[in-house]
């Protein structure tokens, strides 16, 4: 896939998946059938930006601006994270 095509892809949570803040653990959790896990801090920042409309490119741009990191590095990291979650059945993209 070309880099632009990749940047245009739009991640979304899959039907039956929830991402919410748990007050008991004071942590964000991802919930699905037979899955419940606490994503790490970096993943939480990415997942907060997933709304079914924002593209990978837009998500990466937002993160780069806030964390002052180089775009292609962030893009690659975020793409890898989303692919991993897609393989686990948590996201589509």
């Amino acid at each position, binding site marked *: 896939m070309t880099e632009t095509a990749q940047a245009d892809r739009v991640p979304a949570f*899959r*039907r*039956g*998946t*929830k991402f*919410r803040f*748990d007050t*008991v*653990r004071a942590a964000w*959790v991802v*919930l*699905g*059938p*037979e899955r*419940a896990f606490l994503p790490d801090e970096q993943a939480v920042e990415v997942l907060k930006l997933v709304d079914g409309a924002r593209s990978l490119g837009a998500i990466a741009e937002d993160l780069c601006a806030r964390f002052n990191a180089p775009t292609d590095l962030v893009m690659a990291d975020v793409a890898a994270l989303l*692919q991993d979650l*897609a*393989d*686990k*059945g948590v996201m*589509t993209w």
Partner: protein
Amino acid sequence: MVNLPDPPMSLLLELTHRCPLQCPYCSNPLKLERAGAELSTDEWVSVLDQAAALGVLQVHFSGGEPMARPDLPDLVRHAASLGLYSNLITSAVLLNPRTLAALADAGLDHVQISFQDADAEGADRIGNYAGGHAKKLAAAELVRDAGLALTLNFVVHRHNIARVPQMIAMGEAFGAGRIEIANVQYYGWGLLNRAALLPTRAELDACTAAVFAARERLRGTMVIDYVVPDYYAAEPKGCMGGWARRFVNISPAGRVLPCHAAETLPAFAWPSIREETLADIWNHSEPFARYRGTHWMPEPCKSCDRREIDWGGCRCQAFALTGDAGRTDPACELAPDHAIMAEAAQEAEAPPPAFVYRRVGANLGVMA
């Protein structure tokens, strides 16, 4: 100050043991609870309140057949109001447009429908329920069309393991996000029927190959969760993520258990939600503490570097096969009792005996 254990993630409610089907591997205990002993709606509501406060994130409504309880939609609604993720584990033979609409409206997140086989003849024989398979197919369509997330669950054994490719194809045809291909777990009814159910090594290997190939092909489209029978594994499963670490189960009469098979263990006085709070039971009860973590472990687990991965395997299996719940799970090839597994696998080479179907008062005496 005492260190409290981490809160449970997941709660399974056996709302009832009543079920129209009679699967010979049912995970319910041999001694089924009668309807009169079941918790009331108010009692289940209180369980949900307590669970959410304790830190439970997911609730599985199960049974028996949970849809046999007319108050199921009320309980789902209450769970949703507490932010709990709700999953219905059902045989789906009681699911119709009206009952599904009530559940969807109540905020149900996910439905898991069990199929006994990929074809009607085999499925209806295994569940001992004529016409069941056709009802399930219709139900799965309703769930999909209602826009709810759907998992198809297949419990596999020697009578249907050859049709695993067709089971996967069913999942694809339904557009299911996830299917489960789960070999029978041999406790309770499954253990009683082991000689009728355990596949041969060759049958299992063919099944595993089919699952792995399909996983590769369906990456990103459909997740296939796969459970092998311990009898052919080199290492045990990390059962329930370890005893009383992530999971809690409540029986129809309100007994609180660290796993659904735990009632098979003697020498435990299981706490009741009618007498104690869920938090007290989880944090302080002796049965929950007994095998939690690694303090109880004998060798070879005690000094094994997998002890915090599989937690020494399954306590119920250790008891069922060795008579001592505190031994290393015989499924582990390092276990002193591992030879038991190979002996059992021998049974799979002989012709299968008849099923002992799961029902109240089944004639267990002749089989035992």
